[in-house]
């Protein structure tokens, strides 16, 4: 039997809109092994960040159900006190925006020492030197000076390094990285990804990497889970996912990227938009409205994730006879779909 570091079963997170709960994360099950990078991919509004926040117990006003086993214990049964022991300790998170993740009124060294103190890592006398060591570890030049600085004195890349230093301070077993490089320039991104990879090797941690950048996924992940409208629609080892993508959503997404092969031609467009949480049709295949040229018989009534090859799971049966829409006039369909959605009253995703 394989030991999983983290095992989430039927995780469902619902938010209240106008007095009713709507699931943003809908029956999501994920497993992460030790020393493994699982990438969670999807568009904004697909529920990938909501999944991460649910694992960490960071949703205050949401209803979270299901099980999240971490080291044999169900995290969802923990109270706030028990969670605080785990958060920043055995499970740490790297947040997307280093500008807001740090406290602007605290010196860098105090922010790092805070997490060390709370989790009782090291003696008080050792913490100062360990802080410098951590800053050095994440590749910050002249760590002694940076330790005395405030966040606003550092560049975006440096701040993100500090956020990572805080995350790895207590040698976490699981690292959750929520769009860790989205706010950064490509050259800095390359350095930060290198750093995460190196630290993961070093600590043997599992990593849940949340991103919408498929290039980052190809470079970092061991396995990939693709999310759409709150559900996982495809899971596969990274190579398999890129070489042999199956679900219509995954295939459309990969095709919409500008690439060398597509130079001079039109980019593939996924018609319509991700449905709003409270206006989503929860029966049947959720991607069906965006591939209207696929007949209704191709879809399942209650689409399930099924294994089609070792480690490769796909939701719904519509992948079997799926073809990208090249014959129809893109613009026309797109307008029709959008006009239709607008008649139904608003498609705001923010």
């Amino acid at each position: 039997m394989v030991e999983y570091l983290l095992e989430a079963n039927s995780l469902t997170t619902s938010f209240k809109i106008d007095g009713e709960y709507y699931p943003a994360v809908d029956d999501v099950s994920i497993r992460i092994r030790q020393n493994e990078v699982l990438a969670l991919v999807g568009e904004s509004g697909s529920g990938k960040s909501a999944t991460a926040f649910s694992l960490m117990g960071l949703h205050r006003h949401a209803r979270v159900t299901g099980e999240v086993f971490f080291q044999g214990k169900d995290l969802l049964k923990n109270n706030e006190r028990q969670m605080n022991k785990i958060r920043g300790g055995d499970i740490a998170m790297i947040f997307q925006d280093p500008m807001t993740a740090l406290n602007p009124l605290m010196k860098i060294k105090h922010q790092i020492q805070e997490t060390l103190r709370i989790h009782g890592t090291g003696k008080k006398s050792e913490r100062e030197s360990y802080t410098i060591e951590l800053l050095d570890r994440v590749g910050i030049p002249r760590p002694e000076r940076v330790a005395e600085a405030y966040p606003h004195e550092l560049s975006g890349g440096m701040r993100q390094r500090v956020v990572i230093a805080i995350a790895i301070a207590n040698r976490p077993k699981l690292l959750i990285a929520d769009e860790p490089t989205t706010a950064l320039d490509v050259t800095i991104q390359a350095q930060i990804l290198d750093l995460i990879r190196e630290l993961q090797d070093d600590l043997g941690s599992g990593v849940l990497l949340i991103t919408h950048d498929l290039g980052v996924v190809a470079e970092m992940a061991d396995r990939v889970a693709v999310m759409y409208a709150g559900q996982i629609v495809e899971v596969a080892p990274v190579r398999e996912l890129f070489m042999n993508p199956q679900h219509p959503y995954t295939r459309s997404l990969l095709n919409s990227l500008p690439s060398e092969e597509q130079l001079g031609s039109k980019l593939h467009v996924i018609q319509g938009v991700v449905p709003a949480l409270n206006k989503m049709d929860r029966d049947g295949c959720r991607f069906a409205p965006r591939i209207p040229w696929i007949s209704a018989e191709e879809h399942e009534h209650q689409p399930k994730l099924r294994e089609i090859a070792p480690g490769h799971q796909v939701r719904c049966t519509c992948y079997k006879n799926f073809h990208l829409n090249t014959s129809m006039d893109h613009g026309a369909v797109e307008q029709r779909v959008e006009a239709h959605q607008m008649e139904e009253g608003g498609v705001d995703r923010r």
Partner: protein
Amino acid sequence: MSNNLLEINDLKVHFPIKGGFFNTVKDHVRAVDGVSIAIPRGTTYGLVGESGSGKTTTGKAVMGLNQITDGEIYFQGEKLSGKGKKIGIHRDIQMIFQDPYSSLNVRKRVFDIVAEPLKNYEKLSKDALVEEVLRLLERVGLPAGSLYKFPHEFSGGQRQRIGVARAIALNPKLIIADEPVSALDVSVQAQVLNFMQEIQQEMDLTMLFIAHDLGVVRHMCQHIGIMYQGRLVEEGTADEIFNNPQHLYTKRLIAAIPDTNVDKVERNMQLRRQIKEEYDRHFNEYLDDEGRVFPLKAISGTHKVALPVKG
């Protein structure tokens, strides 16, 4: 008359740093420090660089949104920089902004947003105005029903279309697109890029496309300029920049893009590490005594590189 719609000659935009007891000018930030760009009619020029490289400042200078310290900007042979009112010229230059969530006034309806430039420049009757706005909405693929809706009722891609409708309202000749798709998801990004290309062909537009995503720039632009600390380090056709980069900074930028081709990942990372090492060791040689990039030198008809002056 030359074939270039826009010519920028040795543009400098310096911002003063004030400080001290009397709030006197202590120094200058050289946001743009000697940039020359020529954009032939009907083509798209991609301006690429990392944050703080001065690409947006260059775009804003052309729009007349910030003070030019030195240098000239010519649009259709007419001088844009310097004193005097340029209102007549500026109707031919329009801008598409980065963030479709903040560049549209939340209190205005789509009609008011798109009609604003028309009201400023053309005296149309109310009916003619509505008709014109409807025509523009149709052109960008928005249903007529959106005329009296507010921006929050639209998705990101649709909002960017509203921004485009506003930009093309006066039949401009030049569009400055400042990171038009950076705030959008890839699927929506594809939509907006396709559509910008269509509009460009239909209206014979010239575009200055500012972006940091090299994949997008490659897809959209014929000519590309790479900026570093307020100066161009390399300029050439898309093919020259991607397949034959000469400047170390360009090489590093291109090597840093993660590729979705899983077979190439190992090789890319190796190459990236190698270039990073070279960059750390030798990049000083690419800067002059004041830490600035050398002037561009032509190495072929279209390809210019800021290589160190030997000797």
